[in-house]
């Protein structure tokens, strides 16, 4: 079964295509979408098991040998991310049933979600830089559709800006690939890792590396390039927002992690220093936004930016603690962001607004929601033993071991701001004078709350049982620190 690693990409692709045939049968749509995501999740777990036992899985499309054909490579990092992404899509689908509305369900909502899933899983799996571009475009295309899905006024005006920013970054991506090809003569990532150290003129490679940082930075929302994110993510409805917040920026982060550990290592003194500085600035910028807004969506959206900074700071250290920590934190962040958006979405539905100033006193009527939110908020801030803690601890340790101890201090200090910003939602929405709420059907409330609680429970388990996951994560980090393992696996075929 050499093709196993393609299953997490193929299953959603085929299911999405089948779903396009009968948009109006909602029951069937829901059932098949659910089954498809469960099958994808099962395939990705099996893939992790296989990679953990048998080493890195490689398949070259069309049987063309490695540097000529497109390689799809699944090491533990990509396996873990594929599994986490599949898990989140499963919960987003579950959460969509009561929230997204029949009109949207009838206009190809589930196919779009599944196409996005195929693109994300493909981007995590591919071992070819141009193929990465193709998969990124697949997921962007699905995201264009989702962000304008439903065609509300605010969605349309934001989707135009979102489209424009992403088209420009895609054009830059093609330009960066062109320059890289002219210098190295290859686009296979493993082959790049072989060829780049042989090139003596590192200056041009450094320029290309920074260009790639700009390209992926647009997607990942790093410091000067995050400007589009808060506005665009504010527009779509909550399940779509949860999907975007959990997955889309993480593809950019993954691309930076992969390229900056595998082959852009010729001038670490400059590129990784730059990455560290940008990561810290990203954290600070995110903190300002998270404190400045009184809108629950905006607060969590700015927390996405903070998390991107923390992960990239870990990567920029290029030592074992930093990279292990950033992988742990990446997985944690994908799950906790989805969970927080789910919970905040319920709060917003109950009050009929996302403005914090018009909320209050929810703890008496919805106690379970309140306490779940508090657990998720503590998890976000990384209070031990919850899921953010081990990742952040290792990232900070990596900073102290490397040359950027000041970065670690900033991360520690900003943890408090993250906690404050998340708890502020708790204080305003759940404490204080009860405000008049919209009537919410018990069944709808339950249908929204149950997936959220399960997801929060999984994050708690991920934090408390971090020791269980450590072998997988440290194996993933080992491949990132020793590119030779990756190269050997690709050329062994």
């Amino acid at each position: 079964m050499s093709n196993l690693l393609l299953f997490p990409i193929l299953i959603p692709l085929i299911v999405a295509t089948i779903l396009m045939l009968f948009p109006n049968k909602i029951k069937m749509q829901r059932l098949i979408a659910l089954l498809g995501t469960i099958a994808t999740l099962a395939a990705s777990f099996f893939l992790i098991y296989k990679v953990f036992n048998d080493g890195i899985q490689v398949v070259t499309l069309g049987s063309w040998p490695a540097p000529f054909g497109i390689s799809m490579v699944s090491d533990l990092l990509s396996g873990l991310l594929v599994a986490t992404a599949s898990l989140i899509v499963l919960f987003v689908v579950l959460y969509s049933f009561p929230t997204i509305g029949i009109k949207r369900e009838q206009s190809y909502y589930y196919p779009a979600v599944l196409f996005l899933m195929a693109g994300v899983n493909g981007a995590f799996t591919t071992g070819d830089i141009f193929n990465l571009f193709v998969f990124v475009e697949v997921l962007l295309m699905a995201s264009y559709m989702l962000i304008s899905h439903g065609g509300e006024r605010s969605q349309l005006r934001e989707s135009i800006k979102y489209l424009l920013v992403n088209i420009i970054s895609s054009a830059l991506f093609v330009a960066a690939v062109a320059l890289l090809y002219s210098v190295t003569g290859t686009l296979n990532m493993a082959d790049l890792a072989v060829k780049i150290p042989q090139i003596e003129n590192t200056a041009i490679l450094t320029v290309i590396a920074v260009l790639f940082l700009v390209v992926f930075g647009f997607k990942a929302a790093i410091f000067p390039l995050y400007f589009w994110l808060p506005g665009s993510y504010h527009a779509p409805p909550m399940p779509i927002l949860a999907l975007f917040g959990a997955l889309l920026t993480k593809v950019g982060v993954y691309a930076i992690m992969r390229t900056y550990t595998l082959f852009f290592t010729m001038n670490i003194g400059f590129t990784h220093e730059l990455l560290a500085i940008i990561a810290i600035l990203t954290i600070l910028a995110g903190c300002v936004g998270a404190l400045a807004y009184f809108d629950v969506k905006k607060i969590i959206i700015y927390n996405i930016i903070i998390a991107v900074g923390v992960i990239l700071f870990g990567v920029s250290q290029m030592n074992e603690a930093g990279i292990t920590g950033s992988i742990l934190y990446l997985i944690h962040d994908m799950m906790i962001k989805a969970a927080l958006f789910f919970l905040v979405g319920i709060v917003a539905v109950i009050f009929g607004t996302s403005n914090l100033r018009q909320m209050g006193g929810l703890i008496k009527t919805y106690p379970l929601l309140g306490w779940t939110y508090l657990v998720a908020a503590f998890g976000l801030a990384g209070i031990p033993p919850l899921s953010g803690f081990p990742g952040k601890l290792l990232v900070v340790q990596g900073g102290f071991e490397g040359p950027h101890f000041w970065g670690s201090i900033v991360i520690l200090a900003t943890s408090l701001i993250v906690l404050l910003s998340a708890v502020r939602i708790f204080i305003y929405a759940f404490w204080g004078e009860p405000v008049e709420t919209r009537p919410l059907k018990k069944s709808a409330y339950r249908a929204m709350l149950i997936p959220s609680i399960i997801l929060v429970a999984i994050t708690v388990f991920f934090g408390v049982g971090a020791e269980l996951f450590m072998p997988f994560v440290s194996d993933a980090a080992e491949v990132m620190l020793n590119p030779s393992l990756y190269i050997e696996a690709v050329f062994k075929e």
Partner: protein
Amino acid sequence: MEIIMSVVIGLLFMAAVYLMLSKSLIRIIIGTGLLSHGAHLLLLTMGGLGGNAPPVVADGVAVSDYADPLPQALILTAIVISFAVTSFFLVVAYRAYQELGTDNMELMKGTEDHE
């Protein structure tokens, strides 16, 4: 040849930036089209414009005479993608024009709650 191509790419990028900085939505879309044309041309040029022979092994053709097949394949993919994105952008722009009653980007600044 590479020099001429570089100048053309530069001109395309220049025109694209100029168009994208204007207020009218339709000009911006044309600008994005030119931008991706520039990027595609860059991809073609960067692959080297050396060979003329089709990249199929034949007798009596030196290796250096073959055209590089990879940039062509890459460009075809990129062209298809930018075709799809541009047409989607046009549809969204049209819908937005209907819904918002304007194609002026100046009037779309900020978010809804800042109005």
